[in-house]
C-alpha cells in the first residue's frame, strides 16, 4: 500500500498530519527567542516537567492527558520565570533541579503504578514520542489544533513586543512597556508549545523541534521577520517530510522529524556557504 493510498483510506490520518504540521509551525515560532534569551533553559526544564506530568496522568488513567499536563506545565513555566528572577539560587541551578527532579518523579510514578505489561515501551513513548501520531484520540487532535491556532494568534498580536523584549529587555522596560508581562506571556506560550510538541516528538526531543528550524533560518537570514518566517517554512517542510517518511518506513515519528530537521540545518549551512562564495566572487 503506498502512502497516498494509506492517507486516502483513513481520513483520520489526514487530520493527524494536519495537526502535526500545525504543531511544527507553532514550535518554530519562538525558536529565536528561545535560542537568544536564557529561556532555552526554561524550555529544557519544562519538557522534563511535562514528562513528569504525563507519567502521573498515565498512572491515574486520565482519558485526556492534556487536562493534567497543560496546567502543570504552564504553572511551572510561571514559577520558573518568577523564581529565576527573584531567588538568590541561580536561575539555571533552580531549573536544573526542577527538571531532573520531575524526570525522576515521573519515572518513579510510572514504575510504581503502571500496570502495563510493557513498561519500557511506555517510558520510551513518553520520552521519544509515540510510534505514531496516529495514536492520538480525536479529542486530543482537536485540542492540539485549537491550542496551535491560539498560539499562532497570540504570537502575531504580540509580535513586535516579543521582538523588543527579546532584543533588549532593559530598554523595553525603561521606556514604559510591560516587559515583565510580555516575559510571562512568552513563558506561557513556550509551555503550551512544549505540551503540544510532546504529542508529536516526545519530551526528550522537544528542544530539537523548537530550536533547530530557528538555527537553520539564522544561517540564511539576518532580520527577525525573515528568520521567523523562514523557520516556520523550514519547520513545516521538515515535519511534512518526516511524517510521510515515518509512515513509509514505519519508523518512529519524533525521531524521523528531528533527523529531517537536522538534514534541513545541513542544507541551510550549505546554502549559506554557497551564498558567501557567490558574494565573494
Amino acid at each position, binding site marked *: 500500500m503506498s502512502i497516498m493510498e494509506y492517507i486516502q483510506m483513513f481520513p483520520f490520518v489526514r487530520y493527524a498530519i494536519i495537526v502535526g504540521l500545525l504543531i511544527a509551525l507553532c514550535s518554530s515560532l519562538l525558536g529565536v527567542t528561545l535560542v*537568544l534569551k536564557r529561556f532555552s533553559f526554561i524550555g529544557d526544564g519544562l519538557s522534563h516537567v511535562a514528562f513528569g506530568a504525563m507519567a502521573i496522568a498515565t498512572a491515574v488513567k486520565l482519558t485526556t492527558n492534556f487536562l493534567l499536563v497543560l496546567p502543570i506545565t504552564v504553572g511551572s513555566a510561571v514559577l520558573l520565570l518568577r523564581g529565576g528572577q527573584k531567588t538568590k539560587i541561580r536561575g539555571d541551578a533552580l531549573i536544573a533541579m526542577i527538571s531532573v527532579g520531575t524526570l525522576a518523579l515521573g519515572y518513579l510514578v510510572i514504575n510504581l503504578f503502571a500496570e502495563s505489561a510493557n513498561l519500557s515501551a511506555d517510558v520510551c513513548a513518553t520520552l521519544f514520542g509515540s510510534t505514531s501520531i496516529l495514536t492520538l484520540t480525536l479529542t486530543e487532535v482537536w485540542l492540539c489544533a485549537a491550542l496551535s491556532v491560539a498560539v499562532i494568534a497570540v504570537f502575531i498580536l504580540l509580535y*513586535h513586543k516579543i*521582538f523588543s523584549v527579546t532584543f*533588549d529587555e532593559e530598554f523595553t522596560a525603561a*521606556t514604559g512597556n510591560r516587559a515583565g508581562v510580555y516575559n510571562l506571556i512568552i513563558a506561557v506560550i513556550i509551555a503550551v508549545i512544549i505540551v503540544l510538541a510532546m504529542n508529536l516528538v516526545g519530551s526528550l526531543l522537544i528542544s530539537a523541534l523548537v530550536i533547530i528550524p530557528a538555527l537553520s533560518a539564522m544561517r540564511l537570514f539576518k532580520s527577525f521577520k525573515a528568520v521567523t518566517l523562514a523557520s516556520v517554512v523550514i519547520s513545516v517542510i521538515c515535519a511534512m517530510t518526516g511524517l510521510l517518511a515515518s509512515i513509509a518506513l514505519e519508523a518512529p515519528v519524533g525521531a524521523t522529524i528531528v533527523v529531517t530537521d537536522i538534514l534541513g540545518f545541513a542544507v541551510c549551512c550549505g546554502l549559506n556557504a554557497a551564498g558567501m562564495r557567490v558574494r565573494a566572487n
Partner: protein
Amino acid sequence: MPLISCRDLTLGYDGKAVVSGLTFDVHTGDYLCVVGENGSGKTTLMRTLLGLSKPMSGVIVAERGFDAREIGYLPQQNAAQKDFPASVREVVRSGCLNGMGMRPFYTGEQKRAAEDNMEKLGIADLAGRCFYELSGGQQRRVLLARALCAAGRLLLMDEPVTGLDPQAAADMYDIIEKLNKDGLTVIMISHDIAAALKYASHILHLGEAHAVYFGPADKYSSSVSR
C-alpha cells in the same frame, strides 16, 4: 512642579553606597548634563531614574500625569547579543513600542517617524542591514534613533557621543538642541565638558560619594574652579 524631583538619594550596590545625598529637580524643557569621573555613579543614577535599579534610600517623584511611556533611553552598553537577527529598521521601530498602546502593529505615522529619525542620524542607507554587522559607532546611531522614537517628553542618554566621529557628534548635538528647543526634556551623561557647558541648561557633577555641583550651566565653571 518639576518633571522629576530627587530627594536625598543614596545609590549603590549590595549595601555599599556609591553616591549619597543627591537632591535635584529637573523641569520640563531642561537640558541636564551629568558629568563626573569613571565610576562616580552616573549610569547608576540614570538606571535608577528609569526604574531599572532601586535607590538604597531617598525618593524620586515624577510630575503627576507623567508616564514612563514618554521616555526615550540610550543605554551606555549595547544589550543586544551577538548573532541576534535584527535589521536596523526593526531595531529603530521597536522604539515606537511605547506609543502603541493596545494596537498590535505600528501605525503609518510611527513608521514614518522611524524613517525620519534614521534620516536625521544618517543611517537611512543602513536600514536593511543586520544590526550586529555594523561598526560600533553605527550601532550607537541606531540605538540613538530608537531612543528618539521612544522619547515623547523625556530623553535620557548615557554617553551619546562616545564612539561617534566628530561630524556625527556635532550632528547629534544639533539634533538634541533642536528637540530641546521644541520642548523635549533632556538628561545626558557626558565626558565632554566643553559641549556640556555650551548646550546644557543645568549641570550635575558627581564626585567621590557626593554631588560636587548642581545648578545652572553658566555658573558651573566659576563654582568648580573655586
